[in-house]
């Protein structure tokens, strides 16, 4: 057996496992940032979403994304990854219907698993933004739609040899394909759901503190760890220079974003808020996801610094707009997914880690790359937002997407699951309603 295939398969599988592990990270961040009375519900959503993704992506998602077809959608080998394929053969030797991903010399199931964990990430992003009020059933159904009809189409455009790839748009590990897709789908949901009860009442913004910052911190560390699979794994082959480069740009962006988020919140809010610090880290990671292999370590620090500032402003901004996102998913994944994608057009340095992207605006490449990135950002926004809005609207009409007010007040744990997350601990029940006497 070819050594290169073995090594690449190990790399792809090990990094895919780390990305899988990010499901734990999301579960802990989201439940930690929400109230105890909705904890079981959030845990359940984050748990079931990867099961749904697994089946949805196997059934149809993979085929639409990587099947040979037209620039907009895959058409061959649609169902159950059952098209002809002789992976790990590459290049000329490859015979099969998934040619868009035939450049990486690993077995078909390794490709599938790696792509699946990315699909799962896009789906799980939605969960946090719609938390504390969405019906469990409706969330499960939306996740099927997401992993079968929304994510794979965008994926086809960018990573499946579709029209955006042909336009010269670059998204190394998915600032757009994964994060902003998740973000736009979430935004559509949030708008149709409306804010949580009591969040914007009497003309005030009432903060609703999360119940467990230990869990949220734990989750953020796990996500940071998982990102060391997400970004360097996206080489899908063990190219030593590239993966080493990507590990460092990824880490530096996170580090810089943490420090800038701390500074900004210290200045704007008077104290270094831990929630903002954690969001800052994630913002840096999301922002560097597209450019991680195309920019220098120095640029990664700048990108991180800006991401950390952006996320703090975005969290405050969304609240001003009365767009209620309990965990900051929009500020992290949508805002910084867009920002990171555009950064490729600004900071890219041709072949810095091997890929011929051409130079970005700041490195003398002119607007060409930037415009390709912008096209990507806009078209993805339009498609994802509209399709998601329609999907949410249909769910809303057919079965409802929001729990009853009574259930929301008592907590979704009892209403949706009949469980309590912490049955033995005495909780300060009224906290959420008693807060909010703003300075």
């Amino acid at each position, binding site marked *: 057996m070819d050594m290169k295939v073995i090594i690449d398969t190990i790399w792809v599988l090990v990094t895919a496992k780390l990305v899988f592990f990010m499901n734990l990270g999301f579960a802990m961040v989201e439940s930690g940032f929400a109230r105890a009375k909705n904890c079981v519900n959030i845990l359940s959503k984050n748990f079931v979403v990867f099961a749904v993704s697994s089946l949805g992506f196997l059934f149809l998602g993979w085929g639409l994304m990587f099947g040979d077809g037209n620039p907009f959608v895959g058409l061959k080998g649609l169902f159950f990854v059952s098209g002809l394929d002789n992976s790990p053969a590459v290049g000329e030797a490859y015979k099969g219907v998934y040619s868009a991903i035939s450049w990486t010399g690993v077995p078909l199931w390794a490709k599938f698993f790696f792509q699946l964990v990315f699909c799962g990430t896009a789906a799980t992003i939605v969960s946090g933004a719609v938390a504390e009020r969405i019906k469990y059933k409706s969330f499960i159904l939306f996740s099927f739609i997401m992993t079968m009809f929304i994510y794979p189409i965008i994926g086809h455009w960018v990573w499946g040899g579709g029209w955006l790839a042909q336009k010269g748009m670059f998204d190394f590990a998915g600032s757009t394909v994964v994060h902003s897709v998740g973000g736009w789908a979430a935004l559509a949901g949030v708008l149709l759901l409306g804010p949580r009860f009591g969040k914007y009442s009497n003309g005030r913004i009432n903060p609703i503190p999360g119940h467990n910052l230990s869990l949220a911190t734990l989750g953020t560390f796990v996500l940071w760890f998982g990102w060391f699979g997400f970004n360097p794994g996206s080489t899908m082959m063990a190219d030593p220079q590239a993966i080493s480069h990507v590990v460092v740009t990824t880490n530096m962006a996170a580090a810089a974003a943490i420090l800038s988020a701390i500074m900004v919140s210290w200045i704007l809010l008077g104290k270094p808020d831990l929630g903002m610090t954690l969001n800052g880290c994630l913002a840096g990671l999301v922002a560097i996801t597209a450019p991680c292999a195309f920019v220098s370590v120095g640029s990664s620090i700048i990108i991180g610094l800006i991401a950390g500032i952006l996320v703090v402003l975005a969290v405050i901004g969304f609240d001003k707009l009365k767009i209620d996102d309990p965990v900051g998913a929009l500020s992290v994944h949508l805002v910084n997914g867009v920002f990171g994608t555009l950064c490729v057009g600004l900071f890219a340095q041709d072949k810095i880690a091997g890929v011929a992207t051409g130079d970005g605006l700041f490195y003398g490449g002119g607007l060409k790359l930037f415009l390709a990135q912008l096209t990507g950002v806009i078209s993805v926004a339009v498609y994802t937002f509209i399709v998601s809005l329609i999907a949410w609207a249909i769910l809303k009409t057919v079965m409802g997407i929001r729990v009853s007010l009574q259930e929301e*007040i008592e907590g979704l744990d*009892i209403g949706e699951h*009949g*469980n*309590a997350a912490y*049955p033995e601990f*005495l*909780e*300060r*029940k*009224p906290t959420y*309603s*008693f807060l909010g006497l703003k300075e």
Partner: protein
Amino acid sequence: MKKIEAIIRPAKLEAVRRALEKVGYSGLMITEIEGHGKQKGVVQQWRGEKYRLELLPKLKIEMVVKNEDVERITKAIIENAKTGEIGDGKIFVSAIDEAIRIRTGEKGEIAL
């Protein structure tokens, strides 16, 4: 002086407190209790077995007030804690012999 002890639904605390602020009060204590009256408990499940939590979370608000304020304050509480459903709670009034403000040592109604 009288002690007013009101058992209310946790979700009603904000409304009650706002009302109390309007009628004026000098201090209160809130305790998380679990109550049991006419209201049936919440049904939960654990790994296949359903069970009922017979005790429901309630809040107890205690206020020591001047005799003449009892009427006004209980009225404010009743109006704002009421949903008309079983489980709205009760108010109990009892006598207090003496009140002392720890900070100053003042005694009697002035200490409230």
